[in-house]
């Protein structure tokens, strides 16, 4: 088992060395990523990717932003007069 893994690792190193020595590019022959691997962190499809973790941080941040606006409204709603204008 251990010998088999070492042999595979050796073969992989040999292939990489061969590519480097001959200047070949792997871009044309590169295999597509496996189905479970995400190509982009942002899904472009409306169908959610089942394998991706669900990010709830936006829901956590959004509430504090609403609180900020409510506080801003409270400042004006706490009084009915603007007493800084003198007319007499």
């Amino acid at each position, binding site marked *: 088992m251990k010998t088999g893994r070492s042999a595979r690792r050796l073969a992989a190193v040999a292939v990489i060395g061969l590519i480097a020595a001959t200047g070949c590019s792997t871009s044309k022959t590169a295999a597509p990523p496996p189905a479970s691997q995400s190509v982009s962190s942002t899904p472009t499809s409306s169908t959610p990717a089942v394998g991706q973790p669900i990010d*709830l941080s936006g829901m956590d941040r*959004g509430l504090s932003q609403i609180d900020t606006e409510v506080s*801003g409204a409270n400042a004006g709603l706490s009084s*009915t007069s603007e007493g800084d204008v003198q007319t007499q």
Partner: protein
Amino acid sequence: MKTARIFLIGAALALASTAPAAALPATSGMTSARMTYLKARGHLAIQRRLNEIDRLTALVNGATHLTSSNKSALLSKLSSDTSGLQSLDTKIQGDTDGTTLRSDLQSIVTAYRIYVLVAPQVHIVVASDRVAAYVTLGNSIADKIQAKIDAAKAAGKDVKKAQEALDDMKKQLADAASAIAGVDAEVIALTPSGYPGNRSTLLDARSSILTARTHLVNARADAHTAVNALS
């Protein structure tokens, strides 16, 4: 320029507080020294309001979630108030009788209501659209959770707890959206001439935002419950 203006205002205030009133000519029951003093005070009051409008304009411009129609309506109102107050300042500085001056000074407050009406208007509309954006985000996350639940169910896992939490999350999001329905339009429509009678609309709108917020807190808790139940 700014220094010169501050100097002039300071000089006017000093003159008004030290000059003997009886030595100056009266205009409609008000000495010219008093008029100079009140004009300087009026100018400062207008500058404070223009600064507040600048702050509110920056807030609106930075609120990326605002609907284009609400953003446009708020910016239009703020721009109109700016030009109106600047014109009023010019008029006040040129007033020659006390009665007109008093009336113009009063209109700094009554014609604009920057602090007690416009500022809450802006904050409530921004908050309302934030709630709407939050609901959209929440529904998008709910779809992802549902997909995970479906996958887990297909794999033979018990998803009862996750599904219950998700169902409540969707309900809470719908209730939040319902709570703020129409709030933005009602608040934008308020005018200074309707104040203080229309203050109750502002208070109701704030209550609606707070009700929506409670639903969003519940929706967020449901989302965490559902996600944790699947892990």
